[in-house]
């Protein structure tokens, strides 16, 4: 072919760091604490819901309504209507998508035009940047930064904050959207109401749409509270709230997500949706609907999965925090999400010259070394930063702790061996 084959919208977004790391994990004998998925089953009621969806009415094998299987949009409207303090219409204010990933794509394509600016808070779930670029938008980054810590104490994700003046300076007349992620991946930060009020106030002042990725909304620890920015005064009409069945019910392979928002915004997402995937698979949606119906009955009670899951994950988190410290890794205690990041500065100073490409950030070289030599897989945090900032944040790696006890024990074994090797 003599013409350029691929469309220009793919420029600069063809490389995906996950492909490389997932490949590495599959090739080596590693304890995989990298990619964010549970290695324990979804709760029984969710598994049963899926089994029911696939062995019941055979018409569930056929197309459902394009914008969402009616029982699912109905329960999402009722469940989240209560949480967001809004009267949510299942047809106008809810769109079901192929995972939260699909929701993000749909939102960017619907609203971001060539030259529009999108404010992205770093560290960010890595797809926000290429999705902005694919829509012709210009990402504008602002970093969460750790405040100075007391020596000897472990850092906490709550310590990482935005500088309000710096944040305000990022808004221009070209700012179309701000993408918020709370609880945050990879840091685990849970934005406080006050922090969200700051963001909200700027969004209103500059008439910006807030796209809020709240997939980890139930994974909140230590008594912290998840706050949905759409709940704040003046925000419902300019916010798209994204959720994930995968993270909610520990079933990432179902790929069911949703967007909640005002019709004035959702109608544009519906246009993108009907011209991209059109329908989402029916049976997964039926299973999620049934699972939410169950949770609605148990909401707030000890039997609720949304109560049990964070409790169990907090134990995993604490186990991992304890274990990682034994080899000189310094975890940042996350307030929420599936992940924690650990400071590897000590390793960076002790073994600065790990194999890798010339300008490859240290954390990537460290992860590859760790996979090869210690049988542990994590994800370098620099992939969650914009290119200019990667060198500033190349001394952190991300671990996923939402794993079965046996996985954490396997991790302990490898860490013990590592610790033994550290002794002179």
């Amino acid at each position, binding site marked *: *072919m003599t013409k*350029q*084959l691929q*469309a*220009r919208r793919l420029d600069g*977004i*063809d490389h995906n760091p996950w*492909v490389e790391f997932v490949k590495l994990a599959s090739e080596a004998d590693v304890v995989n604490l990298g990619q964010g998925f549970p*290695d324990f*089953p979804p709760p029984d009621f969710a*598994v049963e819901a*899926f089994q029911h969806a*696939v062995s019941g009415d*055979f*018409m*569930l*094998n*056929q*197309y*459902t309504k394009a914008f969402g299987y009616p029982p699912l949009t109905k329960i999402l409207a009722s469940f989240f209507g209560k949480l967001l303090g809004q009267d949510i219409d299942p047809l106008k204010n809810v769109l079901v998508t*192929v*995972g939260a*990933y*699909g929701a993000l*794509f749909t939102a960017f*394509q*619907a609203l971001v*035009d*060539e030259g529009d600016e999108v404010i992205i808070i770093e560290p960010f779930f890595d*797809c926000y940047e*290429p999705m902005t670029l694919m829509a012709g938008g210009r990402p504008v980054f602002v970093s969460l930064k750790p405040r100075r810590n007391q020596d000897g104490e472990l850092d906490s994700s709550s310590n990482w904050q935005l500088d*309000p*003046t710096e944040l*305000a300076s990022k808004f221009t007349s070209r700012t179309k959207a701000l993408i918020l992620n709370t609880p945050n991946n990879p840091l685990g930060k849970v934005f*406080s109401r*006050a922090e969200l*009020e*700051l963001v909200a106030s700027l969004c*209103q*002042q500059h*008439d910006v749409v807030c796209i809020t990725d709240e997939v980890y909304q139930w994974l909140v620890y230590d008594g912290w509270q998840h706050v949905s920015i759409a709940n704040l005064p003046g925000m419902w*009409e300019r916010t798209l709230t994204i959720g994930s069945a995968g993270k909610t019910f520990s*079933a*990432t*392979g*179902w*790929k069911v997500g949703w967007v909640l928002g005002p019709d004035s915004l959702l*109608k*544009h997402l519906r*246009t*993108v949706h*009907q*011209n*991209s*995937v*059109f*329908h*989402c*698979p029916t*049976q997964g949606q039926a299973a999620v609907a049934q699972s939410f119906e169950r949770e609605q009955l148990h909401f707030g009670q000890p039997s609720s999965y949304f109560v049990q899951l964070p409790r169990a994950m907090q134990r995993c988190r604490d186990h991992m925090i304890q274990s990682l410290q034994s080899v000189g890794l310094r975890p940042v205690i996350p307030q929420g999400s599936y992940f924690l990041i650990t400071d590897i500065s000590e390793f960076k100073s002790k073994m600065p010259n790990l194999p890798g490409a010339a300008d490859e950030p240290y954390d990537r070289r460290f992860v590859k070394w760790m996979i090869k030599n210690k049988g542990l897989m994590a994800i370098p945090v620099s992939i969650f930063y914009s290119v200019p900032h990667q060198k500033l944040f190349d001394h952190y790696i991300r671990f996923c702790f939402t794993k079965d006890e046996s996985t954490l024990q396997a991790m302990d074994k490898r860490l013990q061996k590592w610790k033994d090797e550290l002794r002179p």
Partner: protein
Amino acid sequence: MALSMFLARGRLCTLSSRPKFLKTICASKILGLSTSAKMSLKFKNAKRIEGLDSNVWIEFTKLAADPSVVNLGQGLPDISPPVYVKEELSKIAAIDSLNQYTRGFGHPSLVKALSCLYEKFYQNQINPNKEILVTVGAYGSLFNAIQGLIDEGDEVIVIVPFYDCYEPMVRMAGAIPIFIPLRSKPLDGKKWSSSDWTLDPQELASKFNSKTKAIILNTPHNPLGKVYTKEELQVIADLCIKYDTLCISDEVYEWLVYTGNKHFKIATFPGMWERTITIGSAGKTFSVTGWKLGWSIGPKHLIKHLQTVQQNTVYTCATPLQEALAQALWIDIKRMDDPECYFNSLPKELEVKRNRMVHLLESVGLKPIVPDGGYFIIADVSLLDTDLSDMKNSNEPYDYKFVKWMTKNKKLSAIPVSAFCNAETKLQFEKFVRFCFIKKDSTLDAAEEIIKAWSRQKF
């Protein structure tokens, strides 16, 4: 007044650990109150979707949703998928590891099965990781192919009538659709067949130029049911090679080909593999449209761009469905020559239904075009000369009004064929209506009842 508002704001602001900064921001918010008037401007849609908001299916499925209506509209089987397909999915629902993410470009066992199946047709090895992509239905493959390979300002040839998403998808990519209609040969007293509808080779050649990035081919064709012959495909292939054009070949109905016809894959023609994306569908292959799994097969230098789109759109498709599909494919791959193989049994089953539909439509004075493939049949409704004067919205094409009238008055729904046409060609096809016949016998019986009563009313 302003001061008291500021102080009120100040009280709220002290909730934070940085009261000084927040007060500053809140004060500026008061000044910025007037910007709320500009809200509606900012919330405008991105240009790429301008004019793409209407959709024929949304409108017509709503109409046919009335349970008293016999729905021969949307291409949705009301027959059960094969038992073993349902069983596989049931078994898989119990396997825990399949509830989590799988490989983004396609679940390993599925791409392996697809590779094995299609190698038989391509007579060449197909690399499961580099030359296959699993997508959210064939719809998703079309989207990935167009987004990945079609740029702003490119021209894309679209054959009319066309599956309705081709035009908006091309436009969403900023490209220009160039339309060419299929034209019917005169009949000479023979039964009207989809093979009577052809492209004029000279007219087709005139549509190609240096800006032509791709042509979208659909065979077997929706809505006509045309199965392009080897010779017809060769004409297209010759032009693609001459103008160095890509071919996006939508072959979702590839198994549904009736006696006397054969499905040909344009990608197997000399010089075509390197420039063709061939799209398939689990939904149409196994009568499981709700699984929304499709695939693109092509050379790695093209598939890699569809993979880039995938990793920036949905990333991965549902795991349990992909595994179930893989298992179902293995069952049929092992018995390709067996009449029990669904790839053989379904077209046999549908041919009977097709023939029944042809007969029914003729009996009431509709002129059907016998499809050589697919599960739709279109009919010319003009001979009925139905009085539609009391239908509102006289700007709509005749077939839109006819379908709405028929749904309301005869409780039978279909899809207007002009929905598969661009604005300029709508008039050419406005006397045609599309019926779907992948329906259980009781549905076709109900349709027969309606049609018989209808024909009795006329005489």
